């Protein structure tokens, strides 16, 4: 790595990462003081979150998955998971749920150490994962607050039907919005929603631009490990806010600069020197050993050019944008379109597209023990993708926030042999081309 590149990396890291860090920190602060300041708090999940709508009612917004993953990155989730298991939860079930419940049992301190408030409303967008429904019931059991449940049907045949959309719209209009009005005491203003949606669409444009910048060689971003940071604001409490729009403008500019300078992705150790392997990755990351895990890639010159996890809170790269002209319908389409609400064949098609469009050398599946929504069927997906693209596929197994299921030596070994296989295949391909 050149010194110039390292300096550049530090500068870039400061600009975008600090902005995001400040946003997240401010939100945890706002949550910790919300009730003192007379504000109401909502709690909702990432996929299908209705952030623009919640903002219309001035809720301070809490997202349990973000707490779980932040706790994992701060090495706290292991204790929370064990706490939940001690109180009767099975070792077999989703560790996000257990981390959240364990955190509540241990005094409800957020990842930054500040207290998390009891929510005033629990909003479940039941999108793309059955476990959310159980998680929601379990959390509801602990609180005495209002609840709103939005059932989002599954896109089993790869399309959104009128019946699906109408069903979601009806629930929004007749149940979700009136509940949010009642809890917040704020009257619903559709123009305010339109305004938020307009901001969302701007940020979505920039996010897509950033994600698609990975089509460049070298890719200026890592679309999995880095991509997760880039998606942070838009997947969580900020989509629809002016801060999020500003964040994505800044990020886009940084990435554009990197392209201009021919630089690779910024990693925790600076800019990646040489891009040797381009990968498409399916599945969520491991959060408990996030940095070690990432290092196993960049040390080998492997960069992720596209990933499905960065679509879990919304699929934008096929053209969907929040549409201020159809404010309620667009919320329905957004919820219906999140990645895990797509059928397996649609997921396979999407990943094969990525393999081609992003010129990937291989397809890697990180299978997550916790997550049936992602994991069930992945072995067949892997074979399909390998067959259709002719590119080598690799399979590793980890977990989201349960550190007991991340075996560094094992994952590293598997990755190293997989990368070797890709390099050999590339070399054979290159020599054939040369001949």
């Amino acid at each position, binding site marked *: 790595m050149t010194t110039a590149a390292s300096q550049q990396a530090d500068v870039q890291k400061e600009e975008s990462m600090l902005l995001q860090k400040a946003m997240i920190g401010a939100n945890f602060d706002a949550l910790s003081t919300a009730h003192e300041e007379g504000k109401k708090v909502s709690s909702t999940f990432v996929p299908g979150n209705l952030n623009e709508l919640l903002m219309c009612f001035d809720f301070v917004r809490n997202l349990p998955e973000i707490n779980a993953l932040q706790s994992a990155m701060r090495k706290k989730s292991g204790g929370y998971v064990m706490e939940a298991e001690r*109180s*009767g*939860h*099975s070792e*077999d*079930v*989703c560790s996000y*749920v257990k981390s959240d419940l364990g955190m509540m049992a241990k005094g409800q301190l957020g990842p930054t150490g500040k207290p998390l408030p009891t929510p005033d409303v629990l909003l479940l967008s*039941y999108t793309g*994962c*059955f*476990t959310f*429904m*159980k*998680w929601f*019931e*379990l959390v*509801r*059991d602990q609180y005495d607050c209002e*609840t709103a*449940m939005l*059932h989002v*049907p*599954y896109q*089993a*045949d790869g399309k959104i039907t009128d*019946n*699906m959309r*109408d*069903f979601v719209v*009806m*629930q929004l209009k*007749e*149940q979700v919005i009136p509940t949010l009005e009642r809890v917040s005491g704020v009257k619903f203003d559709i123009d305010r929603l339109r305004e938020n949606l307009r901001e969302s669409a701007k940020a979505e444009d920039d996010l897509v631009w950033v994600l698609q910048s990975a089509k460049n060689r070298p890719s200026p971003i890592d679309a999995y490990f880095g991509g997760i940071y880039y998606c942070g604001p838009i997947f969580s409490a900020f989509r629809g806010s002016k801060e999020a729009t500003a964040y994505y403008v800044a990020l886009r500019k940084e990435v554009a600069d990197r392209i201009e300078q021919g630089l690779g992705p910024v990693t925790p150790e600076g800019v990646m020197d040489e891009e040797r392997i381009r990968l498409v990755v399916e599945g969520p990351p491991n959060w408990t050993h996030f940095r070690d895990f990432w290092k196993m890639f960049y040390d080998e010159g492997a960069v992720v050019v596209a990933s499905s996890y960065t679509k879990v809170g919304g699929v934008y790269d096929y053209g969907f944008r929040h549409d201020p002209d159809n404010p309620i319908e667009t919320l329905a389409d957004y919820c219906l379109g999140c990645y895990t609400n797509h*059928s*397996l*064949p649609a*997921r*396979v098609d999407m990943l094969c597209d990525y393999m081609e469009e992003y010129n990937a050398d291989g397809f890697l599946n990180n*299978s997550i*023990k916790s997550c*049936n*929504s992602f*994991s*069930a*069927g*992945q*072995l*067949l997906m892997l074979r*399909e993708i390998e067959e259709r693209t002719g590119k080598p596929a690799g399979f590793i*197994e980890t977990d989201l926030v349960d550190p007991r299921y991340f075996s560094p030596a094992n994952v590293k070994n598997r990755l190293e042999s997989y990368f070797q296989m890709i390099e050999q295949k590339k070399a054979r391909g290159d020599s054939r081309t040369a001949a």
Partner: protein
Amino acid sequence: MALENIVERCQDLYEDLDFTSVRAWKEAGANRKVIGHMPVYVPRELIHAAGMLPVGILGGGDQLDVIHGDAYYQSYICRIPRSTIELAITGRLDCLDGMLFPSTCDVIRNLSGMWQLKFQDKLIRYFDVPQNFHRDIGGVFYTRELQGFRDALSDLAGHEISDDDIRASIDLYNKNRQVIAELYAYRSAEPWQVPTPEVYLLMRAGMLLPVDEHTQLVHDYIAAAKAVERPVRDNCRVVINGLFCEQPPLGLLKSIEMAGCYVVDDDFMLVARWLLHEVPMDGDPIHNLSDAFITYSSETSCKYVPNKKDKGKYLVDSVRRSGAEGVIFASPSFCDPALLDRPMLQNALAAHGIPYTAFKFAENSGQLQPIREQAGTFADSIKLWSAA
């Protein structure tokens, strides 16, 4: 028919992983079609009204050697999808013209996609039911889904399915529900007369036989069971919960009874007991089926409970109704719905002073001794408790 013959017939059906009875039904008439469905619930009335045979596909149990299926699933996913894939890959499901995957959980949901990728020549349908139980919202959605399902079935059948066809099927399934309710009431009143492994086999037979034949079989069983006298044991009375999807090995049910427990209610084959009352025969039959689901359907871990105070109520009610003294939770390993629900159900039981015990199983669990011991200890503690 004598009791042993009925039980033997059910046992033969249960053990026949080649679906011989289904193949025979299909060959007995021209252009007959069969639709398979996974647990928990599909409206079998519509399949029947299309002139087709609905067949419950419940995995391979402990009799099937899973050779290919394990290559499709990671070790941390339950057993039923891998043995179901095994059944399909080994050609045993070739007799099916379609397959339905109800919105039970993410595993079954994703299995529908695996079928789409692997068996494209069949009717494959993910069957979404609403988790919103307002007639004007969830009811409207579900009525339209049912209409879409009716259209897909008529395309496959090559003819319209009339309202009268559906009414006639509703009638037959109402009768089936009624006789099953009688069976359950009889078991709950005199559990020594109606051993649960036999109830299980009878219910499994209903996943394969045409509905009228099954109704008759259950009638015959009740009559035959009443005609014999079986010894009354000093067993405690339990409800068993968690068996709504992946199937327990038959030996597990036998172990529970041998350990000193009479099972007086269960959640086997809920498709047959999902609608809690008769579905009305007059009026729009699609609307009636939809309304039955929305307003008087059963409950299990796959269904959302809109009000916190109602969580677990169905299980407490089941205990009260059947005069049970405790609950045994038998949950499939790696089953998110059952295992995430269990602590909430346990809380509801605890609030009513109802004792419970819990263990996990897999459809191919071979080691039943620990389960038998646990059930035995539970039975003893209940007896001690009631004696105190």
